[in-house]
């Protein structure tokens, strides 16, 4: 237990820094209060509309979306953190968990400060990204309206408050970079991971989200003027393809783990992987059915197809193993569930329950082949198969959405099987566009980080394990 004069000084410096930040934050809040005063800009418009009448929300939707948001956070941790944490070697288990919880901390603040605005703000740069009109959540915060003598919370009449939509989307902003963690696990510097994730979030995730989910996005399903309106209910492109493809780039650019392919690197705790996978399954109900932003029939259908696709994924992957290797494994069953869930994600708002069986089987089989054949053939070390599972099943799902989408669920949008080949093309364009941005963005970011702070820990650290060298801790002290 050590304290030294040097530390005392550092502490003070930091204290002062914190005070300054505090003061500046107050500044921002005031700024923001000003913005909300009715003065001829977009924010004010919302506000002045509200003077007429505060939006009346559907409180059942609020109830469900609160839960859905909580479920998506649970997906990140304990869910994903355990799924990944169990797959690495014992000496790196904490590093993976630390990456998850750090992203929960950092990405949340980044989203509030400017991420939300970049994704869902007004078009700038020709509509390829959102603007700064919602920085610090300006325009969507609740405020006291003196005329009505009440608090007005901006949002959709008959729907939910915008800050609830914001926080639901925030959880996506956390989980997407958290998924990528699996690609560079066991060897990336913590600092590099932080920088990469923040910049990736702002420069890759936010634009793609803007394309696909903001009202004017060029890939947005409900934007009538969209060039290629894609069906992506819960994030096949935005979440899974973007992260899966970026993961492949990471794996290639950071290189293989020491002794990869030379010594086996089996999961140190498959029970964690199992717990994590099943928590992901449960949490995914929030992810997909929550994407209805409502507790209605569409949400119910999304819930059911999500479950069925996961179930089919289990059967597909474990079944393949049973046939090929004579033994179905628990890792196979878990991976299959996740692959099925990824695959149904874009489709969950547009396919029927029987189709979900196909989607789940396809996701499971495609990912199985990617993880066992493709990866070994190409020899990249995507440690926890982020590309194999999220990238491949994400693409499979996006394509199948274009094929299987049915009016019976959407009431409108439909796919190839119901004669709409344009939809299939739109899906391909959306896949390609998000993949390209993910590749370009990731390559540039990783290169920059490599040249500055460096991507990878030293070899000695990698051997000893990141838990001790990056965080000064050990996962289990069982002696």
């Amino acid at each position, binding site marked *: 237990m050590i304290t030294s004069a040097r530390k005392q000084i550092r502490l003070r410096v930091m204290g002062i820094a914190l005070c300054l930040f505090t003061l500046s934050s107050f500044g921002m809040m005031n700024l923001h209060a000003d913005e909300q005063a009715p003065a001829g800009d977009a924010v004010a418009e919302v506000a002045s509309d509200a003077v007429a009448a505060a939006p009346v929300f559907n409180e059942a939707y609020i109830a469900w979306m609160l839960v859905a948001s909580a479920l998506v956070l649970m997906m990140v941790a304990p869910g994903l953190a355990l799924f990944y944490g169990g797959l690495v070697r014992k000496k790196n288990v904490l590093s993976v968990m630390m990456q998850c919880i750090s992203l929960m901390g950092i990405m949340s603040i980044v989203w509030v400060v400017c991420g939300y605005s970049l994704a869902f703000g007004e078009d700038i740069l020709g509509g390829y990204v959102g603007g700064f009109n919602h920085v610090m959540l300006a325009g969507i915060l609740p405020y006291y309206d003196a005329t009505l003598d009440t608090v007005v919370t901006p949002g959709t009449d008959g729907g939910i408050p915008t800050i609830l939509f914001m926080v639901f989307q925030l959880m996506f902003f956390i989980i997407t970079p958290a998924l990528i963690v699996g690609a560079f696990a066991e060897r990336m510097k913590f600092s590099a991971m932080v920088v990469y994730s923040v910049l990736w979030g702002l420069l890759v995730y936010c634009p793609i989200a803007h394309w696909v989910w903001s009202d004017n996005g060029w890939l947005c399903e409900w934007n009538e003027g969209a060039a290629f309106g894609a069906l992506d209910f819960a994030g096949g492109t935005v979440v899974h393809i973007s992260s899966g493809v970026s993961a492949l780039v990471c794996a290639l650019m950071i290189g293989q783990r020491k002794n990869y392919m030379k010594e086996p*690197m*089996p999961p140190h705790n498959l029970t964690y992987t199992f717990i994590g996978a099943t928590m992901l399954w449960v949490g995914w109900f929030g992810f997909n059915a929550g994407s209805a932003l409502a507790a209605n029939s569409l949400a119910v259908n999304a819930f059911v197809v999500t479950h069925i696709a996961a179930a089919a994924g289990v059967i597909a992957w474990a079944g393949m*193993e049973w046939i090929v290797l004579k033994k179905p494994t628990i890792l*196979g069953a878990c991976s299959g569930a996740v692959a099925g869930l990824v695959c149904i994600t874009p489709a969950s708002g547009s396919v029927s329950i029987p189709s979900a069986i196909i989607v789940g089987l396809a996701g499971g089989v495609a990912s199985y082949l990617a993880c*066992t054949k493709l990866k070994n053939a190409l020899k990249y070390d995507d440690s926890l198969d982020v590309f194999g599972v999220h990238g491949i099943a994400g693409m499979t799902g996006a394509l199948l959405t274009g094929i299987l989408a049915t009016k019976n669920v959407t009431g409108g949008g439909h796919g190839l099987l119901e004669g709409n080949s344009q939809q299939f093309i739109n899906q391909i364009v959306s896949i390609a566009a998000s993949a390209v941005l993910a590749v370009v963005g990731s390559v540039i970011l990783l290169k920059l980080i490599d040249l500055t702070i460096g991507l990878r820990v030293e070899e000695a650290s990698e051997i000893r394990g990141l838990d001790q060298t990056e965080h000064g801790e050990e996962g289990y002290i069982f002696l």
Partner: protein
Amino acid sequence: MKKIEAIIRHFKLEEVKDALAAKDIQGMTVTEVRGFGRQKGHKEQYRGAEYTVDFLPKVKIEIVVNEETAQAAIDTIMDTARTGNIGDGKIFVSTLTDSIRIRTGETGEESL
């Protein structure tokens, strides 16, 4: 005094211990070890790939006995730990210079 180290199968431990106790050999120390020998390691799977786990879990028992008891102990272990299949393990015997009971300070055979 002899030190007998036997590397045996996990699930034989209780049986061996009971057999030794029946021969009035009460003290022993047990360690979890992993063994590598003729017995082939088992195959495990990881995301569709198979690999061999070379080291097999075994249990090492260490017994210190006086010269006279040594052979009886060895025979007992041999009899109870044997299954007849590869991997039954080994017994190694060596000589000790001394033995002390910490609690009392007794040394030599007294201390066992």
